[in-house]
């Protein structure tokens, strides 16, 4: 598959189901790890490995929804695909609200499972890429001097050099020098690229409270 080392973690307490899903996804070329209980998964999980989680909704001890919350608390952002032998609207709504990629009702067709897994892996890849980009930009931002940072903030806000110079109490010429140095450090050629990178690094607006 495209994401070479991405791995699908399957959690199901039913050994027969677990083995069958293992075989099915492997036969479709996925890298698969299986866990027979949420506890086993929590003990062995490695959030740094890219991939996604396919798990049963109802398992003894720790249910799928509780495991999903535990992963969120542990900042394990791997996307989750739920599979359930019992379609409950309430449970599926809760799962989707908590960020699940898909909710499949057993018995499901392999096409649906594969589509859900691919979507989950893509989501994981995208979020990991976004994460990496943010890290790079943050690194570059940290190399700016305070004055360069002041200029950057005002440039992104759409202000002209003249305005910036007035606000900072300095000459327009000096602003031009700071601005050129800042653009070089940030490794951007255009204002548009700078603005996009800047918005990526900003913390998202506070999320609405979730159920």
């Amino acid at each position, binding site marked *: 598959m495209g994401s070479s080392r991405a791995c699908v973690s399957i959690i199901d307490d*039913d050994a027969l189901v677990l083995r069958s899903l293992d075989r*099915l996804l492997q036969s479709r070329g996925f890298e698969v790890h299986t866990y027979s209980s949420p506890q086993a998964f929590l003990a062995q999980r490695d959030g740094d490995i890219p991939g996604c989680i396919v798990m049963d*909704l109802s398992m003894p001890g720790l249910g799928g929804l509780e495991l999903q919350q535990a992963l969120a608390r542990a900042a394990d952002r791997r996307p989750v695909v739920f599979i359930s032998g019992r379609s409950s609207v309430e449970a599926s709504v809760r799962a989707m609200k908590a960020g699940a990629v898909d909710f499949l009702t057993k*018995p499901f067709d*392999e096409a649906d499972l594969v589509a859900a897994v691919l979507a989950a892996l893509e989501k994981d890849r995208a979020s990991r890429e976004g994460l990496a980009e943010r890290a790079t930009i943050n690194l570059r931002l940290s190399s700016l001097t305070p004055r360069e940072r002041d200029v950057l903030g005002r440039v992104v806000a759409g202000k002209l050099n003249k305005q910036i110079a007035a606000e900072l109490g300095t000459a327009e010429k000096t602003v031009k020098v700071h601005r050129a140095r800042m653009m070089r450090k940030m490794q951007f050629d255009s204002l548009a690229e700078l603005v996009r990178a800047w918005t990526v690094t900003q913390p998202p607006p506070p999320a609405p409270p979730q159920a």
Partner: protein
Amino acid sequence: MDSHSASSASATPGLTQWGWGSGPLAGWAAPALFVALGYYLAARVGFAFTLQPYPISTLWPPNALLLAALLLAPTRAWWWLLAAALPAHLLVQLESGVPVAMVLGWYVSNCSEALIGAGLVRAFVPWPLRLDSLRNAGIFLFCGAFVGPLLSSFLDAALVSLIGWGERGYWDLVATRIFSNTLAALTVAPLILTWASVDVSRLRAAPLARYAEGAVLFTGLLATCMVVFDLPQIDPHTAPALFYAPLPFLVWAALRFGPAGTAGAIAAVVVATIFGTVNGLGPFAGSTPQETALEMQLFLSAVAVPMLLLAVVLDERGRVELDAREQRMQLTHLSRVAMLGELSGGIAHELNQPLTAILSNAQAAQHLIANKSADPEILVEILRDIIAADQRAGEVIRRLRTLFKRGETQFQRLDANELVDEVLGIVHGDLMTRSVEVVPEFASALLMVHGDRVELEQVMLNLVINACDAMAGIAPEQRRLTIRTRSIEVEDGAVQISFGDCGTGFTPEQYAKLFEPFYTTKPRGLGLGLSISRAIIRAHHGRLWGSSIPGKGASFHMVLPALSTRGGSAVR
């Protein structure tokens, strides 16, 4: 049977053996033939039972036969049946050399007796009449066997006097007719009515032992009657005691063979008594014919009425009990099905698991084969898993089918631990989806009980579901259901199975109502579970009760008498 029989025919098998079609040609021929033939034969019997030398018949069955025929037929067919009796009447009476006017007069009075009796009965009991309740039997006896003969006897005697046949006085004639006709109505009509409504298929299904019992009863009855009523030279001092000799057999018939058997037994006693008496034998012989006939008729009527009523009452009570049992069984079954409905989500889960495994395994194998990367060993494993999953699904279906089935209670030796395991298998999916953890504390010893598997599983299922419902409000990781089986040391031993939840429990006020029907604390509950469960456990000679620490949980305990584990068969 006619093809377009009346709609009620199917509801009352046996009673309406003839299809009462729309007109005389459609299905009315057979009843008419039956009435004509029966009337003729009955008249010949009546003649045979005439005391000589005076022409006083002690039993005149043709009228009773007409009465029974009218009661069995819808009112619109009555004229037809009465008309059918006319040729038979003419034939049999003209053979005996009676003037035509008298013959016709008797036809009128005979028909009037049947019409009065049947008309009165019909006024109170709609067609078809069945002698299956005290009310129906009472109405029949009063209207058909008393009022009908009484009223028609006046007419009969008046006609005889008017036509001037014979030389006996009016009141003498009335008295003779009343008793002769009453006795016939008491014995012949119930015989026909009860036997016409006998369910032939049930008769055929009866075990051989029943037939043997019936044969013994009737042989004994006939032999007793012949000894008592058909032998000469009875000591007058022992005569009253001898009258009672057939009674045990009649009671036997009433207890064991219902109204039909009793009517048959009464008929046998009547025939044997009259046979002896008209031949000058038995305890009634020796007086004047009038006195003899009257004594005998009173005796037979006095025997027939209470015996018939006793049989009807016993039959009615038995049927009511049977109905109640049938109803209880239906209710038990219904509540079981309702409970399985509640479980359906969990059951779907139980079936979906193996189905998922089968589908995914098969699709994996497809890919492996298509990619030519199929390792035979892996394929063997896949097939093994598919078979295992299929068997598991089959097991789920098997368990369900047993519970859905509706059948007679079947008591057998059962292992209490195995029962609990089976129940946990059924609710496995539900326990899972409700995050309930089961803590089994099973006795290691074999705990054998005697009971109906399905009903005991129903009780346990009910207790498990109740426990799960009770824990719906607490945190999922705290939902624990403890199931304990143990043997308790009481006289003869007992097995206790307890289900303990850690829900909110119940208060003493709630407990007082817990086992009442239609009391429920669940939003969608019927409130029948515990009351039916307790009824089931009582029928198993056991006990079902609950205990609770409010706020900490509730426990329900069922105790059943233990069976010896050493393979003994103390209870069969």
